[in-house]
């Protein structure tokens, strides 16, 4: 397949996954908000920090109020990682390769983007938000299923999976990062009782709550939650699971040696690091390293298979 097409389909995978994960994160934050005692609100600033868009946000807003943060992450045209921008980018990439994917899939991506734009006011209202975000998640899942069920599982499909799984691993680390740090003003506040809520919220952000319960058969505790999200072999959004999927896709492609080498390094770090015992600062540091390693896997993929830059 063409190198340019491989690159575009990889980005379709990444952008769709980014839109879906952002929707999950916003939905979970809204739920947490409802669970907390009156007067205590979850901080919205970390959500902006997670995507690395503080500078952009602060250039346009004076404070981190809920409506402003939601608008910025959901519908802002200026924010390149908002749900709407991600869907637009997915659609534009799909448009450059619409000859390559099944027609129904292109039509759904196109409709997904149109719908999200037309209903954006619904998503911004408190009443309509849940439905809006649910639709974003469901449509993306439908699309994933449609592609799995109707597209040849050839090299192109593996580039789609690579994009999706790298983005998912990256988003999982970002969500863990933002949810383990500074979400609630816990110190000396008498709110320790609500700590469990914070971990439940982290699991919910990744749609992991139910699977955690089944898999860990334990109450929700920090160490177990971290262990589950980094090292579970079974949960499809854990870092380990994503790395294994990336490995499988890489092995179907020619000239995969250097990409695989980097991947093995990060995989063995994940499996050998006792995340359950790490305090906030070392954990944050470790997550940074994992993100850098994922960037290197991306660079190797780009070097091996994408078009050389002009």
């Amino acid at each position: 397949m063409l190198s340019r097409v491989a690159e575009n389909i990889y980005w379709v995978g990444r952008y769709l996954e980014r839109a879906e994960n952002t929707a999950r994160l916003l939905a979970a934050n809204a739920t947490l908000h409802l669970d907390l005692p009156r007067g205590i609100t979850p901080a919205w600033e970390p959500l902006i920090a997670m995507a690395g868009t503080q500078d952009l946000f602060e250039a346009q807003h004076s404070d981190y109020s809920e409506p402003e943060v939601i608008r910025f992450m959901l519908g802002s045209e200026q924010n390149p990682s908002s749900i709407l921008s991600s869907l637009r980018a997915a659609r534009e990439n799909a448009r450059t390769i619409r000859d390559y994917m099944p027609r129904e899939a292109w039509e759904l991506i196109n409709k997904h983007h149109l719908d999200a734009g037309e209903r954006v006011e619904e998503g911004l209202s408190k009443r309509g938000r849940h439905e809006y975000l649910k639709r974003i998640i469901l449509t993306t899942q439908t699309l994933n299923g449609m592609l799995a069920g109707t597209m040849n599982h050839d090299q192109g499909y593996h580039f789609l999976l690579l994009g999706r799984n790298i983005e998912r691993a990256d988003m999982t680390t970002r969500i863990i990062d933002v949810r383990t740090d500074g979400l609630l003003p816990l110190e000396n506040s008498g709110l320790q009782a609500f700590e469990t809520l914070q971990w439940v919220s982290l699991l919910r952000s990744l749609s992991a709550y139910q699977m955690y319960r089944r898999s860990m058969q334990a109450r929700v505790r920090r160490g177990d939650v971290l262990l589950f999200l980094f090292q579970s072999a079974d949960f499809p959004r854990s870092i380990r699971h994503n790395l294994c999927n990336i490995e499988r896709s890489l092995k179907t492609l020619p000239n995969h040696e250097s990409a695989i080498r980097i991947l093995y390094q990060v995989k063995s770090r994940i499996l050998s690091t006792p995340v359950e015992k790490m305090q906030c600062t070392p954990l944050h540091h470790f997550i940074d390293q994992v993100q850098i390693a994922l960037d290197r896997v991306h660079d190797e993929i780009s070097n091996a298979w994408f078009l050389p830059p002009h």
Partner: protein
Amino acid sequence: MKNIDWKTYEAGKVWDELIDTENRPRPHGEQLAKLLAGMDADELASRQTAADLAIKEMGITFTVYSDETQGAIDRTWPFDIVPRIIAKNEWDTIEKGLKQRVLALNRFIDDLYHDQEIIKAGIVPQEIIASSSNFRPQCVGISPRFGIWAHICGSDLVRDRDGTVYVLEDNLRVPSGVSYMLENRLVTKRVFPELFEDYAPLPVDDYPSQLYDTLAALSPRDIEYPEMVVLTPGIYNSAYFEHSYLAQQMGCELVEGRDLYVDNDDCVYMRTVGGPARVDVIYRRVDDLFLDPEAFHPDSLLGVPGLLRAWKAGKVALANAPGAGVADDKVVYSYVPDIIEFYLGEKPVLPNVPTWRCMEPEALADTLANLENRVVKPANESGGYGMLVGSASTKKEREEFAKRLKQDPRNYIAQPVLGLSTVPTIVEKRMEPRHVDLRPFILSADQQQVTMGGLTRVALRQGSLVVNSSQGGGSKDTWIVPIDKE
């Protein structure tokens, strides 16, 4: 709510394709007229809305450039759900005429790049070729397979007041529109299925496989599955939708210039995930001058350096061949009846629109004196740009145009203002006549094939004769319908 009443339909003074001068449906349109008359206006409008929505969701678009937004906009394709119907027996004659015409044009192009017999015989003057902006000296002496240069041709047909069908122009460079022809049929089936109960319009969807066979016949390597690609200028081209559509339908790669390179062996390769892969046939949708920066525009980023060299060496086939556009010239158009007689020894089946060549002093004088009643066109523009429709122009526009004409008469032709035929079109829940043309596509390689019908373009603005999508035009599904002999 009121139903459609053909009695009140004002067909005007031109030929209407569905309703005759006494407000009765023409024989091939009786069922359609009856069905439409049985629907109330709201029902009809809701079908139109459904079609618009389907087109938006299917992502059927074309790209226009706008000064206001300083960039390209991806616009949905305007479509009217009332089909245009042509009887099969009439179509058979048109098809015969198109094959004849395109065969003669291909002979003509081949002759121009070889011995120029037609010039020696004094039929076409030398200076027309010498001054043609689409004659490519780089192509002299090249012999493409089968002697065919224009493998894909789109000829525009119009019907005048008396019902005669004329050829208005031939597009031999990179004609577009065929994907909309195919999509229009799909949309009509989706939103207006009951129409197909009374009619069985002949199918149009063979086109992608016919195009595939045409291109495959050109392959320089004798292999079962030649590697064929569609070369597009990219996502910002107005016909990008079509490029990707055709690649998808033929199951071949859609490439941009940067995906390809020519190696030292003069072969063309594409950059793939698994390394270089040799390309045999390129259906190029990039204009000649941007094809190869080594041979033409040195600063073109759309093309592939060395492509012309590879083509000349016979290592790759290009469709259409570079230089085929020389016969696209509207001055050359005026000679087509002579060209047909010269190469085929036959009378033309389809007439040309009477044409004055402004390079001839008498014709220029006549044109200047009658500008109000003429359509004046530049010889080498497409898309309806740079032309004057005399009857719809202001005095000031005519004066300015006259100046341009006098400066560069070689570059203009003049024709009478034709009364383009109309088809009923939904305008705010009412049926109103709108002018149409028709662009069939003709494929040529080892054999010739013509699309079943073609793309009907419709001028959606009242009274407008300009059907180009870049200028407020839309389209209709086109049906070729067999008439039962009773």
